[in-house]
């Protein structure tokens, strides 16, 4: 219970800070063009969002009711979240360097092994799954729909 209340207060405080930051950045926007005299200009909308965040953040901060729906992760769950996020970020880097056709089968295998946890999987099934997934996506996007997929820097891509 204490955890939830303190998370609520933190959330409220962060919302207020974001609102203040938005208002400061908005006030420094450079306006190059002045339209008709009635136009409130491009600053109005971000100001509405920023001030709205300050008011709502204050509302959350001083609210006596605490939210029961907030998600709380323990240390282990945080580590797992960050681990999978980093793995996926590595896939993005691999796509840039090695392209889709090389990176995808390898990453599919890695993802299955990470996501399976304690379940047993056959190596052959994982390899087959990875190859089939890569081929199906490649055929559907590149051959059927003419959508370009990353070629990879080492293969002359951008």
């Amino acid at each position, binding site marked *: 219970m204490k955890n939830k209340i303190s*998370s609520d207060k933190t959330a*409220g405080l962060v*919302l207020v800070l974001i*609102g203040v930051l*938005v208002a400061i950045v*908005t006030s420094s*926007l*450079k*306006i190059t*063009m002045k*339209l008709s*005299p*009635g*136009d*409130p*200009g*491009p600053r*109005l*909308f*971000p100001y509405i*969002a920023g001030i*709205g*965040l300050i*008011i*709502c*953040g204050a*509302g*959350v901060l001083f609210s006596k*009711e605490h*939210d*029961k*729906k*907030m*998600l709380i*992760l323990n240390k282990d769950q945080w580590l797992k*979240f960050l681990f*999978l*996020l980093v793995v*996926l*970020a590595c896939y*993005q880097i691999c796509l840039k360097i090695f392209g889709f056709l090389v990176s*995808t089968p390898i990453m*599919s295998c890695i*993802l*299955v092994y*990470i*996501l*399976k*946890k304690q379940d047993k*999987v056959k190596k052959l099934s994982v390899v087959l*799954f990875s190859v089939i*997934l890569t081929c199906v*996506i490649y055929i*559907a*996007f590149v051959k059927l*729909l003419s*959508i*370009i*997929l*990353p070629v990879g820097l080492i293969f002359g891509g951008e």
Partner: protein
Amino acid sequence: MIQSTLQILLQPTCLAVMLGSVILGIIFGAIPGLTSNMAVTLILPLTFKMTSNLGISTLMSIYVGGMSGGFIAATLVGIPGTPSSIATCFDAYPLSQKGQTTKALAAGTIGSFIGTFFSTLIAIFFCPLIAKVAVKLGPWEYFGLCAMAITLVVSLSKGNMFKGLAAACIGLLLSSVGYAPFDATARFTFHITSISGGINMVALMLGTFAIYQVIINYATDQQKLPDVSNSKISGIGITLQEWKDNIANIIRSFLIGLWIGFLPGMGAGISNLVAYSQSKSASKHPEEYGKGCIDGVFASEVSNNASIGGAVIPMIALGIPGDTVTAIMLSGLMIHGIEPGPLLMTKEPILVYVIFGTLLISAVMTLILQLTGMRLFPKLLMIPYHYLFGAIAIICFVGAYSDTNNLFNCGLMLGCAVFALLMQMAGLPMGPMMLAFILGGQLETNLRRSMMMAKGNPMVFLTRPISCIFLLISLLSIVIPLLKPVLSKAKNAKEG
């Protein structure tokens, strides 16, 4: 018009794509943790190079399949496949435990068909009428309408209204990133050219709906389902008397679903619960509800699918999404270069009728597939999560990249997954954020246009009656839930 629509819809390619999409939708709807939102978002990039007619048919078919498929897990394992099938669990699962799995599945299948098919017929009738009125609305009224749509969704944020409003403000803030309308002032771009056109909609949706789900399911170990057998599934199992007894229940649930679907933000996730409780209060045998009563299954499944037609009416006639899936589909239309709104009916009449036709054909396809493939349902729940989520993660990357051919979007998508986690940790609801993000552009454009036309006089929003009504509803939808606890406390103190 009808001939041209049929020529498009009855092409073998279109029918095959619709069939595949319906099957995919059913699979996503059936498996807990996967939703039709996620299915529509994942497939959206695949439609970029399709014609707009085929693309929107694909998305609509997934929507219908996904909405219908939710009852499968609700019946077989007592876990709703989607939020729209929560009430289905109350009676379908006990029925299944009593050995009447077939009856529960058949009621879900036929109830879903009745809801989707007939609500679409009503949408076909009402859309042109509403669009005719909507064409006469000016920027003042549109501003009021968009504001009302957002605040109505915010008002559903149970627990803390401030959090719902804060989520909507975040959505507005995200929508203002990039060049401003009219004068192209760069806002919050921080010299990053990849976001000068705004936060990419596909990356945001894939990150918040799909990648976040994959990572959080892994982190919190939500990957196991109980085993189910298909030995008790054969035939239909509903008697003629049960049909007769449920006619009034079906009609009432249908009308509830249609109306709730029509209201912005209040989709199938709410209609199934409202229809279930209404069915129970109107029933001659309310004590049987929750113990395996077929009436409860009909009420929930007819109403949640009737919300499809209800949600499509404002999407087509006004360009305002009725729920999160229609919001995603609306963005799909925009990506295809089609401007949603009341002029859609006059500018793109064939596309509009393709949408209606797809809904009708998909409803029939879903009915046939579910009635004939009932014995396969337990197998759907046995697909290993590690293969499924692995494939989803890869498809997300392909989808995010293929929208702009830029790997920056993949990074943005991962950032959006972290953003979704922070939103959940702060208890901020995703619905208002997404709706505000999608409607933010329209809201700002109409606000600035109105102010320019009124030479800076903000009173114009109140002097025009329709705009004034919309803004009043907006205000009340926020103020009433905020004042309710204060008023009830004062009342209690008076009585005490």
